[in-house]
C-alpha cells in the first residue's frame, strides 16, 4: 500500500473518555499499515504525554502497582513512537502549547513537542487526510 500521511486531532484528557483509546488505536493501525501520522493533541489531550504520570496499586482488586501493570497514556504513546521508529514511519506528536500551559503538563515524554493551531493547519495541509476526534 502506498504510504500516506494522516493528521489526527485528539481532545480528551487521559482517563476521561473512550475516544483516547480509539485515537491511539487509529494511530497504531496507521503505523502498522506503514503510514506516517501527526497527532495534534488539543485541550485535555495535551496531558497524554505528561511525563509525570505515575502508576498505582489497586486495592479493590488486591494488586500492588507491579501486579496492576497499568499502562499509562504516556507509555502507550512512547510505545507508538518506538513502533514508528522500528517500522520506518514518522509519528509527530504536537501538544497545543496553550493547552499545555493551562494544565501545567509541560514535561513531555521524549518525542512529543509543543506547537500551536498553525501547526495543526500546516500538518493538515501536508497530509492526505485528517480526522478530528472532538470532545463531547
Amino acid at each position: 500500500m502506498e504510504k500516506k500521511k494522516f493528521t489526527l486531532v485528539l481532545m480528551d484528557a487521559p482517563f476521561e473518555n473512550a475516544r483516547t483509546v480509539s485515537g491511539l488505536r487509529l494511530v497504531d493501525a496507521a503505523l502498522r499499515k506503514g503510514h506516517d501520522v501527526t497527532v495534534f493533541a488539543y485541550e485535555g489531550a495535551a496531558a497524554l504525554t505528561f511525563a509525570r504520570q505515575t502508576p498505582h496499586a489497586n486495592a479493590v482488586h488486591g494488586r500492588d502497582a507491579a501486579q496492576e501493570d497499568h499502562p499509562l497514556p504516556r507509555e502507550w504513546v512512547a510505545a507508538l513512537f518506538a513502533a514508528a521508529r522500528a517500522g520506518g514511519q514518522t509519528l509527530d506528536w504536537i501538544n497545543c502549547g496553550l493547552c499545555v500551559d493551562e494544565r501545567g503538563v509541560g514535561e513531555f515524554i521524549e518525542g512529543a513537542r509543543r506547537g500551536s493551531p498553525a501547526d495543526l493547519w500546516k500538518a493538515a495541509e501536508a497530509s492526505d487526510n485528517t480526522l478530528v476526534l472532538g470532545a463531547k
Partner: protein
Amino acid sequence: MAKYILIESRDPFESNEVPHQYELAASLAREGNTVTLFLVQNGVMPARRSSRSDALARLAKGGVEVLADELSLRERGIGGDRLVAGVAVATIDVVIDQLADGRKAIWH
C-alpha cells in the same frame, strides 16, 4: 460523487443527535455518494438486535455499508449471532484504509 466514512461512537440510547447522523448517512447515499458507517465504542450498542436496531438495518438496505468495530462489540459482550441484519463486523483498520482512500472522514 464523493466517498464518506462516518464514524459513529455514540448511541441513540444516549444521544438524540445519533439518529440525525444516521439520516445524514442515508441522504448522502441517496445522493449517489459511497458511504460507510463505522460503529465504534458505544456506537455499537444498537448493532445488537433491539428496538433501536431497525435504523441500522434500514441504512444497510439503503446502500450504506454498516460496519461494527470488533473490539467494541466484544468489549460489550455483543456476539455475532445477536447482530441486526446488515451490520458486518470489521476492525479499526478499515478506518485507516478508507482515510487512505481519500474518503471524507467524520467522527461523531
